[in-house]
């Protein structure tokens, strides 16, 4: 009977495929501490956003020095959903997760049961600045225009951005405070990622969009949205025409840093080995090229210095969020 013949065939094809998929990784030169196992990188956000980009760029930069790594996305709630899942990998040095300012804020504002204490901070990698945009058809030309509208009727000015309590939300609060409006009354509409927020902005329903520079660059170049300010201390080389907030008389500066953590409970030797691997990765040509292409600032920081940095960020972010009535 024909069917009986095809079943073993299908099974054989599947088995072969699974073997190729799972077993065919190129053996890497120096992954002794991994014992030949594959690193898994979690991007705690949906595909397309800053964390996802970081994870995927790391994946390609790591290919030559640690073999193939797997990137998986766990989206939502400023990365705290990913964090709660990541905490379950306790003691497993093959699991890494991208983190950053957004997660620090989300842990506070979501009152997350799992905090960064459930991780081993390894390294800070990049800083990305935030950009304020309006739809191309908007009458708003610059930050003073927007500030005037915010002073006139704060609730009528809606900001579309990433998850509640994230870098974008914090920035909206800081801008409100700097222009003399109440940060707790900002009309901020949260989305689960930069792509979704962009869709709402493009529909023309939101007054302004707040997002990472790298997430909006393509749209700004294409002219579908207009950038009216950037949160960096100086203008950025990639977008020299966009003035900083400070230039326009709004005293706000915010760096959205991103870094990498391992689960808590890994051995000191594994921690050192992972840190060394990441520092080595930041020196590769692939990673250097990535920083230029994405417009990310190099902010490599490891060891106790990074631990201290994370603690001070937690303090700063908590202060801002309390002022905004979010924590």
């Amino acid at each position: 009977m024909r069917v009986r013949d095809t079943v073993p065939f299908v099974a054989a094809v599947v088995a072969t495929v699974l073997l190729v998929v799972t077993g065919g990784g190129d053996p890497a030169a120096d992954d002794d501490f991994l014992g030949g196992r594959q690193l898994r990188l979690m991007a705690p956000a949906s595909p397309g956003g800053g964390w996802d980009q970081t994870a995927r760029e790391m994946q390609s930069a790591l290919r030559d020095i640690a073999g193939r790594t797997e990137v998986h996305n766990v989206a939502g709630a400023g990365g705290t959903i990913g964090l709660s899942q990541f905490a379950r990998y306790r003691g497993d040095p093959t699991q890494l997760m991208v983190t950053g300012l957004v997660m620090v804020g989300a842990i506070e504002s979501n009152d997350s049961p799992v905090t960064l204490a459930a991780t081993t901070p390894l390294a800070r990698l990049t800083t990305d600045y935030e950009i304020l945009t309006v739809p191309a058809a908007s009458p708003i030309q610059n930050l003073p225009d927007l500030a005037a509208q915010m002073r006139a009727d704060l609730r009528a000015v809606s900001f579309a951005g990433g998850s509640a309590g994230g870098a974008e939300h914090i920035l909206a609060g800081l801008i409100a405070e700097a222009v003399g409006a109440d940060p707790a009354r900002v009309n901020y509409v949260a989305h689960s990622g930069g792509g979704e927020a962009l869709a709402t902005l493009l529909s023309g329903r939101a007054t302004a969009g707040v997002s990472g520079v790298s997430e909006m660059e393509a749209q700004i170049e294409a002219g579908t949205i207009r950038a009216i300010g950037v949160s960096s201390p100086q203008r950025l080389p990639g977008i020299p025409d966009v003035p900083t907030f400070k230039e326009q008389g709004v005293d706000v500066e915010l760096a959205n840093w991103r870094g990498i953590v391992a689960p808590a409970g890994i051995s000191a030797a594994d921690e050192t080995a992972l840190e060394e691997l990441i520092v080595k990765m930041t020196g590769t040509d692939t990673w250097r090229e990535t920083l230029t292409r994405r417009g990310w600032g190099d902010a490599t920081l490891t060891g106790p210095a990074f631990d201290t940095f994370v603690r001070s960020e937690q303090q700063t972010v908590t202060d801002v969020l309390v002022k905004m009535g979010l924590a």
Partner: protein
Amino acid sequence: MQDLLTGFADALTPANLFWAFIGVTIGTAVGVLPGIGPALTVALLLPVTFRLDPAAALIMFAGIYYGGMYGGSTTSILLNTPGESASVATALEGNRMARSGRAAAALATAAIGSFVAGTIGTVLLSVAAPFVADIATGFGPPEYVALMAVAFVTVSALLGPSLLKGASSLVIGAAVGLVGIDTLTGQPRLDFGVPSLLDGIDVVIVVVALFALGETFGHLVEGTGGSRVEPLRGAPMLSREDFRRSWPAWLRGTALGFPIGSLPAGGADVPTFLSYSLEKRLSKHRHEFGHGAIEGVAGPEAANNAAAAGVLVPLLTIGLPTSATAAVILTAFQSYGLQPGPQLFTESGDLVWALIASLYIGNVLLLVLNLPLVKVWARLLAIPAYYIYAGVLVFACLGAFAAGGTVADVLILTVLGLVGLLMREAGVPVAPAIVGLILAPLAEQQLRRALALSDGDATILVSGPLTVSLWVIAILALLAPAAVKFWRSRRPAPS
């Protein structure tokens, strides 16, 4: 159009065709495993393509993608075990057809429908993508609220004979869909303090649990494990009558699938539900629905494939994946060095057109390879149920584990499978639960977002021509059946 032809020239080399052939074959082989939908198939097989040069990798990927989609439809029809929400509507009538000995016709109308929709979808994508993208970006939260209203009103055909039971199923699905951390406020909901529920419940797991596990447990409870279905009765493939009934459904399915798939919050599931409802309303053979109406397979299957082409619009123009499969495609693009965005077509046009051509070639190859195999697949039904459903159980668990990578997912799968069994025993249809699962969270999120944008002013929901037209359609769809009934009762038939 010129660019598309160049794309074809790039893709149509003997070596590339060979890779497309391999892709379609292994895509179908993995996609046909019950409980493993296209997204998972592509994710599992994607690494296979990494060692090829970009053009060959793209075309093999396209083969895997279409193979996985078609494989998924095959198991939905034969075994009533869809591996993703977009195949649920296909399973409804398809499985009824299979059980009454018309499996080959169901598989054939699915394959040809996919091909027709894929062809039109590809042409629309290459001709109208920029234009469609402009309209699609006009869709903000208020427009989605109105679209969801249309969807809720029109999917009533999916609720089945009993309104109460159908609505209960819808509510069960909605409740499952709302589990997890709320995006807008970050508050956990319906998680009962269980951390693994914070991330919500994966749609794939719910679909596989309610259908595949429900079906398996059903056989167990009823003791029908030894039963087998006579695979072929009557007309072997598509009869002339079948074809006559199928082609308008293919076109209507395509007309729904492509535009809705193109929306930045579209996806492929909503159009399949809408297509099923539309076919049921328009059909001259409405009494056949629920017993295996061919339109009910042709329409949703075409809608699914047209939407798959439509989903590429937001993906390519704003880099926004709107379905599970699209998220995997985005990963594939990035691994081939493509960065979706408004400048994708100008910056890496060659590769994009090669991809679009590849998708089309994958589609054609699929038809060529699978149409002759339709009867072979149909013979699967001759195997006694307990052999098949033992395999279903294994692959459903494997699929659930592969999707989330945690044991918790397998436990959730089992619990929902038991819920599916209870629903089945109580005569509650499971398809509305999937509709509730998809539509309810989307509608809720967009409604709250719209009201946030307007600072609580509800008039935003009817602002703009698009929203008003959509609300009018919703109201008409709601009132039309009642009005027709009233009119008929006032003027009784002269018999």
